[in-house]
């Protein structure tokens, strides 16, 4: 079937099998491999992308369901102004080790701080509880998301 998905601002028209998962579409058809697959039960969140601004697990969405939608993947976080604050915060606070969970964590984090500019430790933990990390023990991921929130707040106060 014919679908058009806007990924990171560019339209991608393709003919897909109805059963194609969005994550496979993004990785294999469109060729953006920053979105990962870590499980087969919608448990890990490594495949998280933003669909019309909301985080979804792309392993549990059909490509067909994304027809007409705006999708943001990790490759779309950076803008002409440079890295997204969540990206620099993950580096500064050592929020990643192997980096496999990182795209999903950052996308959930980015959409979360857009709605909650000053989150507590518990709020961040709850927000990312659909995403697994096997390396970091989460402490630095939580810290990075809080740092990013603070930086966003600071720059919008300043402007």
């Amino acid at each position, binding site marked *: 079937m014919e679908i058009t998905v806007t990924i990171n601002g560019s339209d991608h028209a393709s003919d897909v099998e109805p*059963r194609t998962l969005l994550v496979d579409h993004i990785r294999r058809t469109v060729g953006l491999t920053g979105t990962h697959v870590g499980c087969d039960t919608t448990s890990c969140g490594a495949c998280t992308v933003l669909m019309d601004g909301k985080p979804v697990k792309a392993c549990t969405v059909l490509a067909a369901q994304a027809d007409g939608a705006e999708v943001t993947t990790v490759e779309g976080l950076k803008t002409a102004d440079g890295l997204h604050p969540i990206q620099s915060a993950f*580096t500064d606070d050592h929020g990643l080790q192997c980096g496999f969970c990182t795209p999903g964590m950052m996308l959930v984090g980015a959409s979360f701080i857009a709605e909650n500019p000053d989150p507590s430790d518990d709020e961040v933990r709850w927000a990312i509880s659909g995403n697994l990390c096997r390396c970091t023990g989460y402490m630095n991921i939580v810290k990075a998301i809080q740092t990013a929130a603070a930086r966003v707040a600071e720059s919008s106060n300043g402007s």
Partner: protein
Amino acid sequence: MAAPTTPAEIGGIGHSVQRKEDARLIEGQGNFLDDIELPNTLHMAILRSPLAHARINGIDFSAATDLDGVVAVVTGDLMDQHGLAWMPTLSGDTQAVLATDKVRYQGQEVAAVIATDPYIATDALELIEVDYEDLPPITTPQQSLEDGAALIRDEKEGQTDNLVYTWETGDKGATEEAFAQADRVVTLETHYPRSHPAPLETCGILADVNSVTGQATIYMTSQAPHAHRTLFAMVAGLPEQNIRIVSPDIGGGFGNKVPIYPGYVVATAASLLIGQPVKWVESRTENLISTGFARDYYMKGELAVTDEGRILGLRVNMLSDQGAFYSDAQPTQFRAGLFHVVTGSYDFPAAHIDCKGAFTNKAPGGVAYRCSFRITEASYLIERLVQNAAYEVGIDPAEMRLRNFIQPEQFPYETATGFVYDSGDYPTALRTALEEVGYEDLRREQAEARAEGRLIGIGIAHFTEAVGAGPSHTYDIAGLKMIDSAELRVHPTGKAILKLGVKTQGQGHETTFAQIVAEVLGIPANDIKVEHGDTDHTPYGLGTYASRSTPVGGAATAVVARKLADKAKKIAAHLLEAAEEDIELASGVLSVAGSPDRSVTIQDIALAAYTNLPEGMEYGLEDVTYYDPPNLTYPYGSYIVVVEVDPDTGVWQVQRMVALDDCGVRINPMIVEGQICGGLTEGFAMSAMQWITFDDDGNCIGANFMDYLVPTAWETPRFELLATEVPSPHHPIGAKGVGESATVGSPAAFVNAVIDAVAHLGVRNIDMPVLPDRVWAAIDEAS
């Protein structure tokens, strides 16, 4: 902690330098196995046994072959025609690549489909009919060793029962004497349950064998690419120079990516026969049901103690559940890994351990899951025993430890099982952690809470780990000595490339190993590129697992950098017209002793190495070192956990977790702390929720992330980290391994905390995972 000796812009040892690997990973530009695409790649899917034990009477795959897009169906018979139906394991057993005679565990590889598309390959699996004849499954090692138990390994010549191995260590006579003198014997029987490392990225391979040249380029999620190349050469009979293993970015390993799995062999053989690249990436279910599990030891420990709380001796009896094939990934001479460290941090003269392994109808494995070969089990047992001994003797568990610690002046200390601990100050570590947590106050609060019917527990674990395998006189895997290497070249512009035999899976080698060079030569860490994982482009080494990278590969890096420093001094002497002995090198400046204005930089030296050398000196600034460690390194730590247990439900919550680690010199404190937080989380996971179990038919319970519970951010406790820094005396930069300390040390602290909350009721054991219903039952039974 020791202050760094280089300025921040150089970023030598002791600086929390930002990680170089992050830039690509935060932009989605990492290069993980499944991200690699080659033209004409075929995709493989594996048909796995639904049964734990059954005879295969026939396989009909004609319908699968007929499916559009299917290129080949591979069965055990086909593999057998090429002599590849079985493969050797790392522990000297053989393992079925694709089953020919029987299936011996649920999830075992039975057939493989190669197709043009991964969806089609999976579709075709449904079309394969296997005629199975049920056999009785054996799901515990106890059943397995009973008289008359069905023989699991009936194909194995000379195998008449299900016993895999027996092993013992220590001095039995001396231990019996110690027990004869004891005032009391404290006994603990417990099971360290089967667990799975479950890195977030599963295992996979992309095999690209050129059928004309025979060149095999194998992209593989490998923690040990060089060892894997050699093993591929040995198993498949391919000439080793034609095999190139490339281990790309790896999404966590934790031991899971050490073994060679059947899927790798099938994909490589298929690529060779078909003449096209073949990719296979495990699903999570495949990962959890078939690849390298860890632990699964039934342990009985007995501690001989005096009424004053002195430990006199230790006796351990163990039975391990090996699954259907003995494929433990561990040094050849060690049947139960480095379990010898079960004597822990304590000074006592006698210990004896005996252990048996049994085949069962379960997945094989026995990997060192974030652990230096069974040390996790050993450390858990002794720390649980010491805590229980304190209750029996009637002294405080912290005091019990302080009375028995090996003292700082006793190092190097030879344990009752013959390991020589290199360095440590255990009393300072424990006292520092006790003070931080406010131990005395906590004990008071605990007593007050009890009076109100609330249950608070304080658990301590003071572990000692043995990492950095290992000295060539003792350590090898499949005959390959466990040395490791580093090759360093400084280019004319003063920038450098460092090539390693070890391989990062998230530990940050690209940063920390550059820091070691920066420390020695003064070349900024950011000017040093670290290459690893590609066997054509790096020197030989046994890989990254068992916390061996810093102890062995890090040592090689320091030594090779020093070799270059020596040459740099010679060149400096030539340039400065001074005597070589008078040249001093600090932070990248080489100057004449006593006249600091006469100096050149390391960058000047680099240029001179290719342009202006003393007479007779060879050009270039480059060398390679193979490092054979004189001993293991022995990191340690004091962990204290505070929990509150709900007496009505058995649910427990961690209130505090204070973790003091001493891993010697810390190359990058930020990265060390990251490793510790990750390790503590995995320790918490095993103690609280994470286990692989089976029903009586041998069905794996824990085959996906709905059943195999790994903690999310929500359950994971917050950690308070502390450090002391007693250097390793024999490591070139005083460092010890650290990646696994926290996983090794923390389970006992968590479990001890829960036990401590209910110890006054007489509870002395709850097996891991300490699930609420188990806690509730223990309370119920005791009261």
